[in-house]
């Protein structure tokens, strides 16, 4: 059972925040900062005309964070301009993923978001050309260790992250949304084929709405890094609320999930969006999503794990099992991404052979 954490109350019902006491604000600000959701809460309040009714001390923190988010969103625009220039000669549109896509498609998920890198996806046979073009324009590979290079290039669904030598910005170039070695194989060709040009651009695309939702679900529930878990769930919540108005969105979501072998991650995404954020989802969709439901015993365990690991990594949102839950989910995600023998080999290498980062 998910407890009534302040951060969840704030995201579900921002209106209720104006009656919060100062000590509660103190705690909420800390939880939201740790979850990278402070700016998001600022915007939720501002949209409802309630920001100025927040006591001045916590209001300052909300506004400070909004400044950072605004700057980052501006930086994303600039970075995408640079990427477009770099890839102009490749002769095909760049498909933006996740945060960058939300910003450029002007989706509500972009509001108050903080960013760490930019993700794009290209057809696998263009990877070399894209990598070379980015290198020519100042992006350099970050993982120089031979094992890491092999890990990414042979097994993963993306190139090793590339960092721009001057701006220090990072781009992840994907060719699929799950590693080659994963048991599930969502067909990248189908995702790329359905991608849509952005209004006003002939060289920038984003995934179709249903694919966008499915990708954020896979990203969250098959990812080994859950430190942005709640933020990613907020993305999903926000996409679902926004796309709700599209005709036939829900029926096509279930069909597409089956087509792309993504019914399981979709089931989790809907389940936890409802649990944590009370996302409104039509009953038909809830029923249709059951096809991705694991057996009850597994689900009971998974619930225990995600209910802990999706909360901000703050002591007020943790219990004695939280650390273990994060560890288990890390192993689970790696296991889902690699066959077991390869996984053993990978974990062995990471534990005993790879140089340690200080």
């Amino acid at each position, binding site marked *: 059972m998910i407890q009534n954490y302040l951060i969840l109350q704030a995201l579900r019902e921002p209106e209720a925040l104006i009656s919060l*006491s*100062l*000590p509660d*604000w*103190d705690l909420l600000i*800390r939880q939201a*900062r*740790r979850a990278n959701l402070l700016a998001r809460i600022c915007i939720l309040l501002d949209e409802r005309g309630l920001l100025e009714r927040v*006591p001045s*001390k*916590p209001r*300052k*923190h909300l*506004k*400070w*964070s909004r*400044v*950072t988010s*605004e*700057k980052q969103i*501006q930086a994303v625009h600039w970075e995408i301009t640079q990427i477009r220039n770099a890839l102009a000669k490749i002769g095909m549109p760049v498909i933006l993923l996740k945060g960058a896509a939300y910003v450029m498609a002007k989706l509500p998920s972009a509001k108050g978001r903080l960013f760490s890198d930019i993700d794009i996806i290209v057809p696998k046979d263009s990877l070399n050309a894209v990598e070379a073009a980015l290198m020519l324009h100042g992006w350099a590979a970050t993982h120089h260790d031979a094992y890491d290079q092999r890990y990414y290039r042979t097994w993963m669904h993306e190139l090793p992250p590339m960092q721009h030598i001057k701006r220090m910005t990072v781009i992840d170039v994907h060719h699929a949304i799950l590693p080659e070695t994963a048991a599930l194989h969502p067909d990248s060709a189908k995702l790329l084929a359905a991608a849509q040009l952005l209004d006003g651009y002939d060289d920038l695309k984003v995934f179709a709405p249903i694919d966008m939702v499915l990708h954020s679900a896979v990203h969250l529930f098959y990812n080994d890094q859950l430190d942005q878990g709640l933020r990613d769930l907020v993305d999903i919540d926000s996409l679902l609320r926004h796309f709700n108005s599209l005709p036939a969105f829900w029926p096509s979501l279930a069909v597409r999930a089956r087509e792309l072998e993504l019914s399981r991650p979709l089931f989790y995404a809907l389940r936890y969006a409802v649990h944590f954020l009370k996302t409104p989802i039509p009953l038909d969709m809830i029923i249709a999503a059951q096809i991705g439901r694991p057996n009850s015993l597994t689900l009971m365990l998974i619930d225990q794990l995600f209910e802990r690991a999706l909360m901000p990594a*703050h*002591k007020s949102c943790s219990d004695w099992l939280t650390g273990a839950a994060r560890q288990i989910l890390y192993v689970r995600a790696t296991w889902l991404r690699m066959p077991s023998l390869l996984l053993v080999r990978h974990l062995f290498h990471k534990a005993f052979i790879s140089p340690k980062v200080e």
Partner: protein
Amino acid sequence: MNVSALTPSELKRRLRKTGIFLQTGSFTTYLKTSISCVVEGIGLLYADYPLVEQDGFADFHITLVRPRNLRRWFKPQALFLFDGNTIFKPLPLDQAFPMLEWGLNWCVSNHVNHCLVIHAAVVEKNGYAVIMPAPPGSGKSTLCAALINRGWRLLSDELALVRVGDGKLIPLPRPVSLKNESIEIIRHYEPKAIFSRKVADTIKGTVAHMKAPSDSLVRATEVVQVAWIIFPKYQAGAKACLEVLPQSRAFMRVADNSFNYSLLGLSGFKTMTNLIDASLCYDFKYSKLDDAIEMFGALKPKV
């Protein structure tokens, strides 16, 4: 109620058990620690700072702890935690108090965005402030320490907070950080000044902190108009000399010393433009503190 209202043992008990809500300028810091040199530093240098438990709200939550590793037995360390997160690598236990001071600066420079935050000392006299941005080693803190012992009010020795909107300077009076020879120079210059214990072998050499004058603490909420931006440079044997700096150069140099100029975007640019426009900008070379005090005393604001 100020920190000085607590007996040393009560302060120690509170810092260890419940933590204290310490008011510095317009910020409240929740601080918890059982490290004795930090308790001692707080008792000495923060005696005149208000405790504000009643709000139950703190801007920054800081804990200084001794990491529970093997080294605690032979080379004990101190760790600075920002709301439970490690921000800096651990330092030798002996450096825990300077680490708190650096950590408090980090809290402000990494979060505060309603102000243009500049790495600079700020002092004020007769309603006009001088901002002294400077890279480490230029003698900014030494000059600042001398000025505030000769009638200038301390706003900050590390962080100039220029409010976006009206360009007013917000005070953040905290202990003044002095390094190496400067410590003895200021001790001689003002024998009544109160210093924390010297800590050797830090990343900045030997450091000690000087208590902020109590007058500057009483006036910690009074914002001020900027009048001068002066880049100090200590140079052995140099005759004190102010040299007018073109506005364009001053702009770029202040921007270089700013933590969030770029982050603030357009409002950063506007704030900076207004700041430079309102100020007379100088390079300042000096070798004798008394000469510097005299020249600063003769400064006239822009008409």
